[in-house]
């Protein structure tokens, strides 16, 4: 038998097998729960493809058949190497142990970011207290005019925008800021540093500006219910961003990329929880903070209670971490 007819015969003999493999692949892609028999069938197909590819590479070189087999083998590889479906147990494990572990690993950068935020807020206060004309840098003309007329820019907010829309706008913005605080850590932490410093500066400047018109108390009253958790979460996101920057500046693994990827994968476990906390912050800021019927005492209670809930959530206790142990 000549080599050509041998190869032809091999191709012809494999055609029905490949047709069956196509059916197996289609069935696997469609099904969400693969049976043991189905999985075994898929593995057998993968092995037979590996053999076919090895044969083709040896006998046919860079032919169309070899290239096609490379493609099929690659897609079967991805079909077999699939992540398990996220079960309720996995979510619970994330909330009870994994996210708190990440949180503990952030304690040092969190201290640094909090200090940065406080210092920036003090700098913002000093800046506006010393040079009041610079208020245009942090507030729009409309906001400045309102405060000059004895009103906060948050007064009457509910007459313009309904609470629900306000909440969605606020939590979307806060989530975007938090994601930015984490992601901008890729610039060796400098992006996060800038974002946290800017937020601190603006908060301090806003308080200094309202203080000049005797309205700092009113601003505090507006902020206190949602601000305790909102600012804490932004600081935690900042700490995550700084730790991301550190993984690039001082890699702990063999390469910067590996170190960065490992850190991102760890930090990602904390982000859903931070997002959820910010959604509730947005609801408080939309429904409670602009509503003048809530006295300061209730706002303080809401702020303090929600802060405790945040601590419990970040330590995993809210989800039964202590009980599970």
């Amino acid at each position: 038998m000549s080599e050509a007819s041998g190869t032809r015969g091999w191709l012809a003999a494999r055609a029905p097998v490949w047709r069956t493999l196509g059916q197996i692949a289609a069935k696997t892609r469609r099904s969400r729960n693969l049976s043991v028999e189905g999985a075994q069938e898929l593995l057998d197909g993968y092995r037979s493809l590996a053999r076919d590819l090895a044969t083709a590479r040896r006998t046919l070189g860079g032919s169309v058949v070899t290239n096609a087999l490379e493609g099929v083998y690659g897609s079967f590889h991805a079909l077999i190497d699939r992540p398990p479906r996220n079960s309720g147990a996995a979510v619970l494990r994330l909330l009870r142990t994994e996210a708190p572990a990440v949180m503990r690993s952030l304690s040092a950068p969190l201290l640094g970011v909090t200090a940065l935020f406080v210092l920036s807020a003090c700098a913002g206060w000093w800046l506006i207290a010393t040079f009041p004309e610079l208020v245009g840098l942090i507030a729009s003309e409309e906001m400045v005019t309102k405060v000059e007329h004895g009103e906060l820019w948050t007064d009457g907010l509910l007459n313009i925008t309904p609470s629900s829309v306000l909440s969605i706008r606020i939590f979307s913005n806060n989530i975007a800021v938090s994601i930015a605080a984490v992601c901008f850590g890729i610039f060796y932490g400098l992006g996060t540093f800038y974002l946290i410093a800017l937020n601190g500066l603006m908060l301090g400047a806003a308080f200094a500006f309202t203080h000049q018109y005797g309205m700092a108390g009113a601003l505090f009253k507006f902020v206190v219910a949602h601000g305790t958790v909102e600012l804490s979460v932004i600081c935690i996101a900042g700490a995550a961003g700084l730790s991301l920057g550190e993984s690039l500046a001082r890699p702990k693994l063999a390469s910067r990329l590996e170190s960065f990827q490992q850190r991102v994968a760890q930090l990602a476990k904390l982000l859903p929880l931070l997002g959820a906390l910010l959604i509730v912050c947005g609801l408080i800021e939309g429904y409670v903070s602009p509503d003048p019927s809530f006295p300061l005492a209730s706002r303080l209670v809401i702020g303090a209670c929600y802060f405790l809930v945040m601590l419990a959530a970040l330590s995993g206790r809210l989800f039964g971490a202590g009980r599970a142990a």
Partner: protein
Amino acid sequence: MDRDEFTIASATGVEVKLDVAGAGSRAYAFIIDFHIRLILAIAWFVAFALLSIGHVFPPPKSHDTPTTYILAAILPALAIYFLYHPVAEVLMRGRTPGKRTAKVRLVTTSGATPSTGAILIRNLFRLVDSLPALYVVGLACTLVTARNVRIGDLAAGTMLVHDRTDALAALVALGSLAGQTKLDTAALEVARDLLERWRTLEDSHRAMLARALLRRIDPGADRLSLEMTDAPDLRARIESILRGEAAQ
């Protein structure tokens, strides 16, 4: 061609070779997805407007707070805009309609289907990739990195590879033809490739290529008569050789 190969060790001992997609394929997929997103969002607004006009979802009276109305109009459009990529990539296992059209798919650096977490990380980092505008950072990163990846992919450990979805069908077709013809494999591949591309070729080119092929696979064919034969007959001749009906 914007193709690069990436080799991965596998459990069988036979390496997996993946064609890494370049900036062109990536941009092509993104543009398609962007248009799908846009069309879906506009379609929602049009549908909502029609529902309002038809009083299925009547607009609020002037003294009412239009909360539900505003939310019903805005939320689905926002969801389409922000969640299109992660949701499609999770549901379609590393693909989106745009990626499918561009014949690319997302895999991890070990060739596996990416996890939900990896897909979310990849999409969160769009914030950095899209800086300062029009994905300049992402595009620049794609051009300078070894696997043509953007920052989101670097963070998530993913990459975009060419998806040869039609490879299995091509294999089956070649195998079936191999059982009928006496052509050698190389000639068989060329003949099938020519027939596959027949419609996309210019008439003069397809005739020229068919004649060149027939001169090789049908030595008995008269050169002059081949020159006189038109494209449809040349195709029929090649097909009959592939079916093993003509002498080779």
